[in-house]
């Protein structure tokens, strides 16, 4: 397998312009001759569908929810970054580029990240023009806040629901194209397989989640914008239906999966309360701007927080990282919280939590000012826990949040299967080994509004695509495979539910492939994983049939894919014997127990290629070349 990144030549700052100039265009009148399938209707999928429709392509958009306004981008709270330098605090495209590369611990491509920073400003303009009600200063100009890991204020926001407002903007732009007939919606449809003909992605097989019908759809290109795989861990901040199925099936049809072990564990989530917990809720890390993280200095101190005097509180982030304090990047904050809890200083019923305290900020700025900033987050916290963060500190604990890994894509966002494009969280491209706060929304929209619409035309201009219909044997084969798989899930008739297996998988990954990993644990996890897979296919219980709405069957299919996928994730974690970004390999630490990156050996993208059922996938490496920045060991002290 060749991993050709297809990065344009020339100086970094000119690559994107050069690409757009040198790329072949499709005549406006000819665009309507191309059919494009977009799977997923979150920020990336909706923005891509809208823009491709505006350009004149025929777009079919699929999502598993009942409406394309519900993709999990909607839950992003904090904001979206852009290099507008509105605050005159020294920001620039170059700084956003540098911060993103550095935040990703130098495991992303310079060219992709620079392009992302360049496009960031246009995204804000676009969203405002759509009527996204961003927060404003009294003079009427856009407000900004600073966000985890950044020393400038470059984050644009709409209270604590920026993701919602941006998604509704993209959704509305897409609905406008639905009205014109350029976009056709297929809600409650799940992609079950990718159809590859003559080496090109030419269609998909879907299951209608209401009728159970297995349908096929042909196109000239397929775009996956199906989000991340964080739900492999069962408990995560992802939505319940978020899954790896679409990208996993594409992997099995030849798309390489890159850096699957890069999973971001978010430091500020509401702690777990019990066995039947179905998901974890994130509290935006913008809270760390005014909240101070602490634990009791003495381990096992079970006094309520208000009774612990100042002298007996350990503000461990401020102490350890004086220049960044509570605003250290997510991986550092998460690992430190785990470390404190491992030392027995954890608080709350389970001992798996630390405090996030607003008392100082309230004294300094007043309760009203703090409520105005974080009101809806405080309400959300109180709703879930029954406690008011104004009266007592919040309790927080890390949770799986975002997956930097994803299908490998080149500069054009095309995977190793020609004609298969991958956007947003579903690809691996821009965040390296760790994503900075407020960068996910930026990437999803950059990919959908600006990058894909430019790169897909070059694909169409270059490829001689023969007309294809769903009567092609490749569609029949994919349909049969899908039906066979569903039948197999329904016929086991064992004694355990899909959720039960999912929980077991989640615990296994959290324990051995979570915040800190080591060789012994990962190898153990591999063994236990194959046992789990065996048990799943022998003892699964799915009620009902495949011929109507069957949520148990949907879940079973997704869990089966998570179990298969987990193996590649663990293999990837095993092969990367360095600590970088969110991936902390215990064998690779500095004398001060900080993460030690090993650039000589691991400055590459790991891309895994499927080799067949029960075969170990092949690892391909795309070297990362840094011509414009100096690699440095991250230090937030």
């Amino acid at each position: 397998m060749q991993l050709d990144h297809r990065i344009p030549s020339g100086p970094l700052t000119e690559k994107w312009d050069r690409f757009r100039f040198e790329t072949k265009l499709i005549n406006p009148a000819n665009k309507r001759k191309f059919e494009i399938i977009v799977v997923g209707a979150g920020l990336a999928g909706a923005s891509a569908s809208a823009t491709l429709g505006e350009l004149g392509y025929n777009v079919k958009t699929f999502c598993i929810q009942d409406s394309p306004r519900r993709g999990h981008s909607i839950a992003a709270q904090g904001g979206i970054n852009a290099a507008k330098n509105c605050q005159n605090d020294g920001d620039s495209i170059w700084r956003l580029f540098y911060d993103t590369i550095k935040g990703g611990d130098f495991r992303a491509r310079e060219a992709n990240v620079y392009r992302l920073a360049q496009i960031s400003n246009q995204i804000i303009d676009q969203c405002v023009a759509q009527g996204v009600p961003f927060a404003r200063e009294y003079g009427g100009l856009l407000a900004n806040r600073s966000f985890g890991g950044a020393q400038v204020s470059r984050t644009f926001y709409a209270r604590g629901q920026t993701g919602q407002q941006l998604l509704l903007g993209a959704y509305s732009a897409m609905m406008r194209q639905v009205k014109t007939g350029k976009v056709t919606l297929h809600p409650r449809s799940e992609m079950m397989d990718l159809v590859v003909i003559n080496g090109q992605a030419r269609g998909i097989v879907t299951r209608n989640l209401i009728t159970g019908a297995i349908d096929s759809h042909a196109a000239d290109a397929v775009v996956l914008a199906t989000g991340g795989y964080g739900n492999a861990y069962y408990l995560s901040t992802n939505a319940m239906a978020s899954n790896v199925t679409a990208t996993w099936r594409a992997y099995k049809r030849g798309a390489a999966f890159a850096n699957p072990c890069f999973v971001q564990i978010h430091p500020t989530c509401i702690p777990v309360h019990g066995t039947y917990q179905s998901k974890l809720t994130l509290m935006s890390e913008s809270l760390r701007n005014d909240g101070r993280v602490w634990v009791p200095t003495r381990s096992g101190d079970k006094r309520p927080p208000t009774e612990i005097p100042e002298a007996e509180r350990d503000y461990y982030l401020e102490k350890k990282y004086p220049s960044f304090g509570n605003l250290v990047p997510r991986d550092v904050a998460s690992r430190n919280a785990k470390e404190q809890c491992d030392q027995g200083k954890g608080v709350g019923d389970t001992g798996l939590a630390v405090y996030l305290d607003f008392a100082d900020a309230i004294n300094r700025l007043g309760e009203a000012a703090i409520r105005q900033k974080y009101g809806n987050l405080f309400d959300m916290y109180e709703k879930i826990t029954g406690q008011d963060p104004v009266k007592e500190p919040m309790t927080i604990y890390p949770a799986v949040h975002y997956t930097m890994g994803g299908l490998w894509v080149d500069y054009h966002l095309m995977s190793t299967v020609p004609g298969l494009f991958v956007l947003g969280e579903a690809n691996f491209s821009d965040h390296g080994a760790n994503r900075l706060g407020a960068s996910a929304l930026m990437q999803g929209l950059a990919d959908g509004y600006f990058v894909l619409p430019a790169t897909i035309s070059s694909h169409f201009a270059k490829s001689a695509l023969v007309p294809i219909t769903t009567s092609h044997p490749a569609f029949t084969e994919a349909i049969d495979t899908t039906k066979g798989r569903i039948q197999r899930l329904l016929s086991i008739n064992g004694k355990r539910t899909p959720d039960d297996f999912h929980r077991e998988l989640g615990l296994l990954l959290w324990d051995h492939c979570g915040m800190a990993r080591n060789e012994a644990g990962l190898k153990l996890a591999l063994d236990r994983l194959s046992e789990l897979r065996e048990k799943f296919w022998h003892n699964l219980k799915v009620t009902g049939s495949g011929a109507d709405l069957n949520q148990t069957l949907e879940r079973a299919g997704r869990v089966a894919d998570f179990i298969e996928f987990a193996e590649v994730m663990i293999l990837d974690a095993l092969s990367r014997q360095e600590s970088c970004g969110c991936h902390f390999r215990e064998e690779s630490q500095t004398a001060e127990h900080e993460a030690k990156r090993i650039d000589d050996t691991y400055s590459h993208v790991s891309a895994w290629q499927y080799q067949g059922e029960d075969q170990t996938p092949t690892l391909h490496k795309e070297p990362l070349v840094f011509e414009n920045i100096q690699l440095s060991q991250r230090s937030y002290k």
Partner: protein
Amino acid sequence: MNIIHLTLKIWRQTGPESKGSFKTYESGPITTAMSFLEMLDVLNERLILSGEEPVAFDHDCREGICGMCGSVINGTPHGPEKKTTLCQLHMRHFKDGDTLVIEPFRSRAFKLVKDLIVDRSPFDAIIAEGGYVSVNTGGTPDANAIPIPTFTAEQALDAAECIGCGACVAACPNGSAMLFVGAKISHLALLPQGQPERSKRALAMVKKMDELGFGNCGNEKYCEKACPKGISISNIARLNREFMKAAFCSVEE
């Protein structure tokens, strides 16, 4: 953490054409820290193991923002807590021994799909008529070119917070979608970006809303009370104003 036991009377219906009925289940032990949907998860796990089809219900983000979940609990959409989606309703708000009647969001315009799941795609159809600003990607002015007063932006956001869950329709005796439509109309009518299409939007969205079988507003405020995001009924007043103005004064069709 407390444990409670509940009696659940849940609407079961295999499909749109079949006849539905209430079926009674004992919840078994439920911890009060669970969310309402987690309580249903527990019931469903038990049903699957006993070979009975679990209760179908819509849900996704489980943090109150996607708008996918929602059922009527003892006559109230999303249950008894104010400004709360069903996924954010926690069992600490119920007492041991309570009986809960759980039904789908019923309305003429929302067809029942299965058990507690209804078809809310008419909302998307209304948005497609004009719930947007017609700007293509690219070529937009600088985001700061038009200053927007803080108050205006906040007011627009108050309306734009709507999650499209449909509780307003289920709560309304007339099955009206005017809170939903009013929220979108207000969001865009308040902002400078929404001005060029203001009249056209109001006329087209209201027309579609009527076509799809949603009823008229009776000013009873059931919708406002049921809304998990606290969308104010004043948005319906603004919708009426926008519609009247467009109908009487606009030169557009």
